[in-house]
């Protein structure tokens, strides 16, 4: 009998409370212990210990040497005491020459930073060249913080408002909204003081319309995404927590590129780090699912990991363990729908030698996975491992890897993991001044455990690629690859598999004036050498010129696709023509956008012959740059048109929808 996954609400709640507690624990002392800086200019300005000759020519007015400045864009001012004796002057702030953007009033020079100056130490270096060619340098150091309480405190926010009202539609359309109102908030805030740092980013959204809203949208207020990050660093110790929409990357064979909502807590000391996380296994949107932390364990993925660096960070060791369950697929995914659960453990090592030119990677992982918790079968165990070596020598870059993934290997939350695979990959690239040549070879097979019920298919592939950019504004690329699939260990009564696939492709890109001309062509043949002889061929030609002017961007495109099927002797041709353009008139007061596609599909057996046309367009008039608190209040005509024509059935359709749209934004930053 198999056990049902026990609900672990209590554990998850404890983890959640722990995250919040740690955040509060680090926040309170850092705020209480934050040193109240003296107000601007309160720090006594020490007289610069400069050479007397410098002091007679340059007088630093603001900020004074060693001063602490409160503000995001502190003004810098200095004066020449004897301007007549100066032939040239250069002012450099933190390695950036600001001489050309300084304002001069008489003998006084000033500069106001264009963007917020990062908090911390700054160096201002003023160099004057006297009439007799003598070079005199005055250096001044000062520090800055954004507010008295925090070194850095920024909050950039923008509220967007959109109201759509349908003004026209085709009579037989009944699913298009009449009225819709959207309000969005994009927010990005950060606080930093000493070793403490916290940031919060979110996109919140309010939507309402006269018809029901399809998933994953909902009527009312929803969080599209959010992320609250907190970090504390002191000497070699660091800790941090993340709550919200996370991107998890443990090791390639376990958790890689997993984007889910939840929480993560990490501790680090010097080159050692440990962390733990809990995320909802289903992708969440809106408030549904809360922080992603609470709820039963069969809907969550819990994990822990550790890493350590040795030998001047030349060696990196990582280990990870994850466990959890998944009840259903996320929005955007089609595939296995069974409730599943599993756990995985993996360890990896990376070794960098000879100035990182020789890199060795290896990983080993084991999984225990039950793909359907409702059936009578228990979870199965399996393993996966890989070794890789990459070497850069002069113009050569070489890579080689071996990978084994067992047939039952599966990772909870990482359903795109390939299994039942064993193979080697070799690739070499030679990079010359204007040319690059790449050669590759791979050999892999499935049925790695040699199951007698299915054949073992081996795929052997070779590829070659060449790029040339020796002519200014011209890039040329050629690619060739050929693969062979052959089976072995066929069960009795099964035909052997033998298929050859060959791809040829080329691309050329040329930039002339404001035009970017791109052309690609490809030919692909799949030669079925089995008795069925189901050969297919495809040809693809794509032309994408793009014109970019100051007030106009035009991107037409044309694509021709042809497939030929030997088993039916039918050729299918598609012609796809696109036109996108946008631009503006009257100093950005009148804006226009257009995107359209025309597609024609026909088959040689005359069973298919049709076209589709789809157009979307928008014409916007900006009523004012600013109107009270509103920025760029605008009125738009936003429309779509579509038509289809089936020449075989002789049917036509035409559809149109036109909206009147009012929109504006309210930016506020502090």
């Amino acid at each position, binding site marked *: 009998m198999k056990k049902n996954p026990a609900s672990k609400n209590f554990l998850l709640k404890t983890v959640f409370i722990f995250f919040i507690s740690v955040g509060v624990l680090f926040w309170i002392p850092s705020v209480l212990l934050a040193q109240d800086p003296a107000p601007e200019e309160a720090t006594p300005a020490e007289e610069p210990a400069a050479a007397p000759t410098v002091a007679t020519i340059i007088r630093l007015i603001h900020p004074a040497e060693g001063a602490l400045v409160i503000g995001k864009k502190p003004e810098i001012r200095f004066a020449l005491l004897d301007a007549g004796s100066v032939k040239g002057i250069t002012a450099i702030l933190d390695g950036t020459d600001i001489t050309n953007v300084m304002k001069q009033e008489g003998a006084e020079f000033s500069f106001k930073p264009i963007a917020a100056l990062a908090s911390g130490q700054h160096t201002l270096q003023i160099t004057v060249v006297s009439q007799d060619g003598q070079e005199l340098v005055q250096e001044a150091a000062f520090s800055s913080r954004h507010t008295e309480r925090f070194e850095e405190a920024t909050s950039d926010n923008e509220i967007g408002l959109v109201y759509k009202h349908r003004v026209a539609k085709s009579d037989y359309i009944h699913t298009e909204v009449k009225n819709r109102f959207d309000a969005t908030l994009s927010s990005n805030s950060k606080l930093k003081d000493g070793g403490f740092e916290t940031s919060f980013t979110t996109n919140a959204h309010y939507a309402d319309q006269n018809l029901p809203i399809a998933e994953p949208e909902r009527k009312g207020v929803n969080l599209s995404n959010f992320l609250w990050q907190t970090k504390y660093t002191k000497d070699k110790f660091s800790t941090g927590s993340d709550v919200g929409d996370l991107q998890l990357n443990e090791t390639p064979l376990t958790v890689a590129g997993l984007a889910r909502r939840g929480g993560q807590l990490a501790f680090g000391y010097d080159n050692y780090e440990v962390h733990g996380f809990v995320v909802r296994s289903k992708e969440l949107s809106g408030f549904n699912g809360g922080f992603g932390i609470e709820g039963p364990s069969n809907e969550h993925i819990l994990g822990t990991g550790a890493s350590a660096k040795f030998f001047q960070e030349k060696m990196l060791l990582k280990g990870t363990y994850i466990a959890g369950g998944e009840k259903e697929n996320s929005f955007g995914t*089609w595939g296995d729908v069974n409730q599943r659960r599993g756990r995985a453990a993996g360890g990896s090592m990376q070794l960098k030698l000879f100035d990182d030119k020789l890199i060795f990677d290896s990983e080993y992982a084991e999984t225990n996975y039950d793909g359907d918790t409702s059936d009578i079968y228990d979870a199965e165990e399996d393993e996966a491992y890989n070794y890789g070596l990459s070497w850069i020598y002069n113009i050569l870059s070489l890579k080689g890897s071996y990978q084994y993934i067992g047939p039952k290997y599966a990772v909870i939350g990482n359903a795109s993991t390939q299994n039942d695979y064993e193979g080697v990959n070799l690739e070499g690239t030679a990079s010359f001044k204007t040319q690059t040549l790449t050669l590759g070879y791979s050999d892999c097979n499935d049925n790695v455990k040699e199951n007698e019920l299915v054949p073992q298919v081996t795929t052997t592939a070779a590829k070659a690629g060449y790029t040339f950019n020796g002519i200014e504004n011209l890039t040329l690329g050629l690619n060739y690859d050929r693969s062979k699939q052959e089976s072995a260990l066929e069960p009795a009564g099964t035909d052997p598999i033998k298929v050859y*696939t060959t791809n040829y492709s080329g691309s050329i890109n040329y930039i002339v004036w404001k035009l970017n001309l791109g052309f690609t062509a490809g030919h692909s043949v799949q030669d079925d050498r089995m008795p069925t002889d189901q050969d297919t061929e495809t040809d693809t030609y794509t032309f994408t010129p793009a014109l970019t002017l100051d007030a106009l961007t035009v991107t037409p495109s044309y694509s021709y696709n042809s497939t030929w099927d030997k088993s039916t002797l039918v050729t299918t041709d598609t012609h796809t023509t696109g036109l996108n353009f946008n631009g503006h008139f009257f100093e950005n007061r009148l804006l226009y956008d257009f995107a359209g596609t025309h597609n024609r599909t026909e088959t040689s057996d005359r069973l298919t012959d049709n076209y589709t046309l789809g157009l979307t367009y928008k014409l916007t008039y900006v009523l004012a740059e600013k109107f009270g608190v509103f920025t760029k209040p605008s009125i738009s005509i936003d429309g779509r048109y*579509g038509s289809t024509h089936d020449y075989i059935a002789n049917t036509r359709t035409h559809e149109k929808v036109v909206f009147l749209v009012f929109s504006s934004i309210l930016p506020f930053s502090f």
Partner: protein
Amino acid sequence: MKRTSIILIGFCVLGFWMQSAEAANLQLTRIQLRFENNRATLTVKNRQPDVQAFADILFTGTGLLQGYWQVDGRLIAHVNKHLVPGKKVTLSTPLKPALPTFSEGPHIVMFVVNRPAQPIPFPKALYYVVPGETPNVATVNLTQPLSESEIDPLQTTFQWEGQPKVATYLIEFIDDNPQKPLFSAITEKPEYVLPQPVLKYSFAKNQHYFWRVRSFDASYNVIGESEIRELRLK
């Protein structure tokens, strides 16, 4: 050969499902749509460029995959690809033209599979366009000195084509790390001459360096970027 065609007339959609014996070998087992954030939902600003959707496809067997990308029911690109056993395949919407982002509100992206014929409820991804300004990042055309020139820095004026609506240009000189320029300068004019004191302390003769220019509007948004050019100091 058995062939069925189903015409779906939603908003400018005409899809054909062709069921044939030759496609029987290839079977799709999973399709996951996502954007660059690895999620099936994305929030973008009005007129944000280069928005793409991706389809991660797992499959068994060998054969021809035929399908097309559509956004809000409008077909934008066809896909014909021979699949062979091995790793998963990842398809993407084209960059030219990229997904349209000029109309505020929700937009649905789908990858519709015509072949192999499988009764698949094709997954959807949603991107949401919010009002806001996305400055177009134009190309700053560098004029002098030419790429890989050997220059006398005291006699050289770095020049580029001026752009409208630029408040300031930032010229950056790089030795090996593009993220950490060796030296930079802010200027309102599309030209710059390295000052002698800087040459003395930050640059060395007979060494290779790189330079690039970025332009900013009055709100300090990046509105232009140049290529990176190499030079050698005499």
